[in-house]
C-alpha cells in the first residue's frame, strides 16, 4: 500500500524540476538582470542533479521495481520512468552548466533556464505518463518550451528559422497525434493505457479502422518527438539553427522522452498480441527503423557542417533505438523482447551522455567562433587537446568503438535484435553503423590528422563548458565498464512492461 508520503517521494524527481523552475521564477522576479547568469545556471543544474540523484536513489532502493500507479493510474513510476528521468536530469545539468559560457553575453538568461527546466519537467512526466491524456499534455509541456528555446537567439536567422520549422512540424504532428488519440478514445472509450489495452479485443473487432488510424496517428506524433522518419524533417534544421546547448538538450533528452513514452504507450497500451490483427505496429516500426537509420546515416555521410552531421547522426541513432520496438516479434526465444527493449533503453541512456557531449563540444567551438564545417576543425587537436580527446571519445563511442559505453549499448541492441529473431534488422544496423564510422572519423581526421589552415588563435578556455564536456566524456568512458550498474535495471524495467 503506497501512502501519500511515498507517492510524493516517488514524484520527487519531477518535483525537483518543478521546484527549480519555481526558484528561477522567484530569482528572476527579484534580480531581473543577473549579470552572468551563474546563479540561474546553478539553480537549473542543481535541479537536474537533484532529479537524477533522486531517481538514482529510487532506482537502487528498488521501491518502484514493479511499478507504482499514482493519481488513479494517470501516472506510473517504475524502473523505466526513473531510468529516463535519470537521463533527463543529467542532460539538464550538463546543458545548464555548459550554457553559462554560451549565453554569457545574451539577455533573458532566466527565461532560458526556466524553459529548460520546464521542458525537463514535461519530459519527466512523459516518462511516467500512463494515460493518453497525460501523454499529450506532457508532450506539449516539453515541446512548447523547446520551440522557444530553439528561437532563443532571436536575432540569428538560423535560430529563428529552425524554431519556425520545428514549431510548424511540431504543431502539425501534435494535431495528428491528438486526433489519433481521439480516434482511439472513440474506439475504446478510454484514455488510460491499461483500460485501452483491455478494451482492444472488442474494439479491434468492432472498429478496426478507427482504432488502426488512431494508433497510426499516435505513432506519428511519437515519431515526431523521437525525430524518426517521416516526422524527422524538423530535426536537422532545428538542431543546426538552435543554440548548440539547446540542440544537445533536444537531441538527447527530448528524443529519449519520445522513446520512453513510445515504449510505454505501445507495449502497455497496445500489446502486439491483441492488436497485431488490426495494426501490426511491430512491422510498422521495422519499416520506420530501417528507413530512419538508413536515411539518417546516409544523409550524415556527406555533410560539410559538423553540427548538421550530428543532427543527422542523431536521426540515425533514433533508428537504432527503434529496433527496441521493431524487434518485439514473438519470434524470439523467452525473454528476448525484454532483452532487446532493455538494450534500446540502455542505448538511449548512454546516448544521453555521448551525444550531449558531442553537441556541447560543438558549442565550445562555436564559442571560439571557429566555424561549423569540418575544415574549420582542422588541427584543433593541437590547440585544445583535452577537449578534442573528449570529442574523439564521443564520436567513436557514437560510432560504436570501445572507447565508451556506446560500444556496449549498440552491440547489446544488435545482439538483442538477433535474439528476438530479426537478425536481418541487426545486419541493417551493422551496415549503417559501419557507414557511421566513416563520417564520425571525419571529425577525428579533421581534429588530429589535418593541419590547420591558419593559426586558430584560441586564447580563452571557458571553464563551465570544459567542465560539462569533460564530465560527459568521463561518464561516457566510465560507462564502458560501469554499464554493469545500469544493465540489470534496464532489463528488469523492460521485463516489467510485458
Amino acid at each position: 500500500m503506497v501512502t501519500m508520503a511515498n507517492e510524493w517521494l516517488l514524484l520527487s524527481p519531477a518535483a525537483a524540476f518543478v521546484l527549480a523552475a519555481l526558484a528561477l521564477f522567484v530569482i528572476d522576479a527579484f534580480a531581473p538582470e543577473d549579470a552572468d547568469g551563474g546563479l540561474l545556471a546553478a539553480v537549473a543544474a542543481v535541479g537536474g542533479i537533484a532529479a537524477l540523484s533522486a531517481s538514482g536513489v529510487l532506482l537502487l532502493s528498488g521501491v518502484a521495481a514493479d511499478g507504482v500507479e499514482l493519481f488513479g493510474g494517470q501516472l506510473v513510476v517504475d524502473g523505466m520512468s526513473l531510468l529516463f528521468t535519470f537521463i533527463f536530469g543529467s542532460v539538464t545539468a550538463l546543458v545548464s552548466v555548459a550554457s553559462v559560457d554560451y549565453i554569457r553575453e545574451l539577455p533573458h538568461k532566466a527565461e532560458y533556464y526556466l524553459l529548460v527546466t520546464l521542458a525537463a519537467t514535461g519530459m519527466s512526466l512523459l516518462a511516467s505518463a500512463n494515460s493518453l491524456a497525460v501523454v499529450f499534455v506532457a508532450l506539449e509541456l516539453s515541446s512548447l518550451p523547446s520551440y522557444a528555446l530553439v528561437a532563443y537567439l532571436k536575432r540569428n536567422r538560423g535560430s529563428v528559422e529552425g524554431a519556425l520549422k520545428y514549431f510548424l512540424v511540431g504543431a502539425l504532428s501534435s494535431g495528428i497525434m491528438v486526433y489519433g488519440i481521439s480516434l482511439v478514445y472513440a474506439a475504446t472509450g478510454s484514455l488510460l493505457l491499461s483500460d485501452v489495452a483491455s478494451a482492444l479485443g472488442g474494439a479491434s473487432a468492432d472498429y478496426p479502422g478507427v482504432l488502426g488510424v488512431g494508433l497510426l496517428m499516435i505513432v506519428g506524433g511519437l515519431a515526431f518527438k523521437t525525430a524518426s522518419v517521416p516526422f524527422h524533417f524538423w530535426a536537422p534544421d532545428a538542431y543546426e539553427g538552435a543554440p548548440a546547448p539547446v540542440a544537445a538538450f533536444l537531441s538527447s533528452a527530448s528524443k529519449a522522452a519520445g522513446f520512453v513514452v513510445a515504449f510505454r504507450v505501445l507495449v502497455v497500451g497496445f500489446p502486439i498480441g491483441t492488436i497485431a490483427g488490426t495494426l501490426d505496429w511491430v512491422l510498422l516500426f521495422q519499416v520506420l527503423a530501417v528507413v530512419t537509420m538508413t536515411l539518417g546515416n546516409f544523409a550524415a555521410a556527406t555533410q560539410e557542417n559538423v553540427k548538421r552531421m550530428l543532427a543527422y547522426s542523431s536521426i540515425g541513432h533514433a533508428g537504432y533505438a527503434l529496433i527496441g520496438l521493431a524487434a518485439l516479434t514473438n519470434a524470439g526465444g523467452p525473454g528476448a523482447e525484454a532483452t532487446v527493449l532493455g538494450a534500446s533503453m540502455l542505448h538511449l541512456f548512454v546516448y544521453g551522455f555521448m551525444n550531449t557531449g558531442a553537441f556541447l563540444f560543438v558549442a565550445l567551438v562555436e564559442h571560439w567562433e571557429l566555424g561549423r564545417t569540418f575544415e574549420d576543425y582542422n588541427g584543433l587537436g593541437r590547440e585544445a587537446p583535452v577537449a578534442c580527446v573528449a570529442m574523439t571519445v564521443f564520436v567513436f563511442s557514437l560510432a560504436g568503438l570501445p572507447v565508451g559505453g556506446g560500444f556496449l549499448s549498440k552491440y547489446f541492441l544488435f545482439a538483442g535484435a538477433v535474439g528476438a529473431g530479426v537478425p536481418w534488422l541487426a545486419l541493417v544496423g551493422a551496415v549503417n553503423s559501419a557507414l557511421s564510422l566513416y563520417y564520425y572519423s571525419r571529425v577525428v581526421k579533421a581534429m588530429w590528422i589535418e593541419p590547420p589552415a591558419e593559426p586558430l588563435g584560441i586564447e580563452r578556455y571557458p571553464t563551465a563548458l570544459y567542465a560539462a564536456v569533460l564530465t560527459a566524456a568521463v561518464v561516457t568512458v566510465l560507462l564502458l565498464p560501469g554499464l554493469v550498474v545500469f544493465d540489470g535495471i534496464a532489463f528488469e524495467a523492460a521485463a516489467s512492461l510485458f
Partner: protein
Amino acid sequence: MALIYELTPAIVFLPLASFALALFFGRWMPKKGAVAGILATAGALGLSVVTLGWLLLSGEVHDQTWYTLVDAEMGVDLAFGILIDQLSAAMLVIVSLIAFLVHVFSLGYMNDEGEPGLPRYYAGLGLFTASMLAFVMADNLFMAFVFFELVGLCSYLLIGHWFTEDAPPSAAKKAFLVTRFGDYFFLVGVVGVLVTFGTAGFAGSEGFPALAESALAGETSVNTFGLSTEGWFSVLGLLVLGGVLGKSAQFPFHTWLPDAMEGPTPVSALIHAATMVAAGVYLVARMYGFYALLPTVLGIIAFVGGFTALFAATMAVVKNEIKQVLAYSTISQYGYMMLALGAGGYVAAFFHLTTHAIFKALLFLGAGSVIIAMHHEEDMWEMGGLKSEMRTTYLTFLAGSLALAGIFPFSGFWSKDEVLFETLVHALGGSPLLFGAYAMGITAVFLTGFYTIRMVMLTFHGDPRSETAEDPHSVGWNVKFPLSVLGVLAVVAGALNPVPIEMLTGAEVDFLHDYLYATPEALLTGAEHYSSLSSYGSGAIAGGEIGTMLVNAGLSFGLAVAGAGLAFGLYRGGSPARHTERLGRVQTLLMHNYYQDEYQVWLAEGFTVRLAAAADTFDQGVIDGTVNAVSSVSRSAGARIRQIQSGVVTNYAALVVLSLLALLVVFAILGGWF
C-alpha cells in the same frame, strides 16, 4: 660405439665454425678467414679419413639420431641423424678433400689477386662445405632436404660473389630459381614420403625403403591416396627425382650450370666436383633402396642420364670459353652417373662420381690457374702456347683431360667404361630399352674425347694468340699444390675398381666393388642388398661376360681415341682455324644451347611476369574497384538522400502527410480495415 662416431658431427661443425668466424671476424683474421677455412677443412678431411679407416678396419657402421626438432609423440618426427656407412664415409672423404684443396687454391685465386669481400667468400665456402658434409651424412630424407636447400643457398651466395657487376647476381638468381623449381617437387616428395611412411629414414628395417619394400610385397599396407602401391611409390620417386635433376643439372634443368660460371673459379670447382651437382646423384645413390624397387623410375633415370650425357656433350663441342666447355662436360658426365644408376650400375655410378670429382676439380683448378695467368681472360682463342710457360698446370690439366676423355689408363676410362658396361649388360639382360640409353652414352664418348682435346689444344698448344698469352702471370705454390695432388689422383684413381683387369686376370682388384658390398645387411643400404632388389637381368654377347666387356671397352676406348685424334688433327699447328664454324646452322643451334634458356626465360619473364601484371590489373581494377565503388556509391547515395531536406517547411509538411497517408493505405490493406 666407437669414439670416432662421437666425433663425426665435428666433420660438419668445423667448417661451420669457420663460416661463423669468417663472417663475423673475417675482416681481422689472417688471410681474411682463409686460414680458418683451410684448418677447418683439413680437420674435417682428417676426421673423415679416420672415419673411413675405422670403417674399413672394423666394418662398424653408424646410424643414430643426433638431434630432434619435433618429436614423434603426435605425428611424424623430424630429426637430424648421422648415417655413416660405406657410401657416406667415402663421400665424406671426397667432399672434404676437394673442399680442402679448393680452400688452399683460393689463397692463390682470391687473396693473391686482391679480390673484394674475402670474409664473405670464405664464410660462403665454409657454409657450403658444412652443408654438403651434413647432407652426405644425413640419415633421413628430411635432413637431406634441409641441407640440400642450404647447399642451394650457398651456391647462390658464392655464384653471386661479385654482386656489384650485373651478370653474377643474375646467374646466382637463375641457379637458385631453377634448382628451387626442382626442389619444389623434391619437397612435395619429402612430405609425401613422411606422410606415407611416417618416417623418412634411409637405413634399416625402419627406413622408408624397407617399408616400401614390404608394402610392395603386400606384407604391410600404407596410405597410397587412391593409387596403386607401385604407382604411388613411383610418383614419390619421380617427385624426389625432380630435386635431383635440378641440382645435378640434368635435362631440362641443366640451364643454370653454365651461367654459374660467373662465380669465382674455385667455387665452380667445388660446385661441379664435390658439392652441389654431386648432391643430386648422391641422393639417388643414398635412397637407391627405394628406386631399385621401381623399374619404371629407373628406366626414366637411365634415359634422362643418357640423353643429358649426349646432349650436353654436343654443346660443349662449340664453346669458346674454357670454363663453358668444362661446365657442359660436367653436365654430360653427371648424365653418365644417372645413366649408371638408372641402369642398375650402383657401384659404377659411385665409381664415376669419385673419379669425376677428382678430375673435374683438377680441370677447374687448372682452368683457374690458366685464368690467373691470362688475367681473367677466359676465351680460349685468346690463349695458346701456354704449355711452355706453365709446366705444372699443363701436365696436370692434361692428366685431367685424358681422364675426362676416357683415355686408357687414366681414371676416367675405368669408371666410364664400367658405367657403359653395366648398361650394356643389363640391356642385353632383357631390358632392350636400355640400348637407347647405351647408344647415347657411347656416342657421347666420342664427343667427349673431341671437345676435351680441342680445349687442351687451344689452351696450351700452338702459338700464343694474345699478349697476355705470350707473357702469362705466374702462379704460386698454393695453386700448384692442389693441382699436383689432384693430378696424381686423376692418373691413379682408376685403380680403385679396375673391373676389366679382374675379369681378365682374375685378381681381386675391384676394391670399390667389395667395399660397397661390405655394408652390413642390417642397414639395407649396401650394394649387395640393392643387387638383390634389382629387377634387371644380365646378358652377354661375344661369348660371355669377358667378351662383352672387351667389346664395350674397345668400343668406348676406340671412340674416345677417335674423338681425341680428330680434335688433335684439326687444332694442331701454330694457329688453328675455327673449324666448328663449318657446322653452320648446327653451330648456331649449339651455341644457343638448343634455345633451352630462351624458352625457360620466356616461361619466367615472358609468361609468369605478364600473368602477374594481368593479375595486378585485375586486382586493382575489379576487386579493389568494387570496394571503392561501394564506398563512392554509398556516398553519392547520401548526397542524393539529403536533397529531400529541401529547406521549405511546407514541403516538409506535405511529405509528412503523404508518407503518413502511404502508411495508412498499406496498413489498412494489411489490417483489413473498412
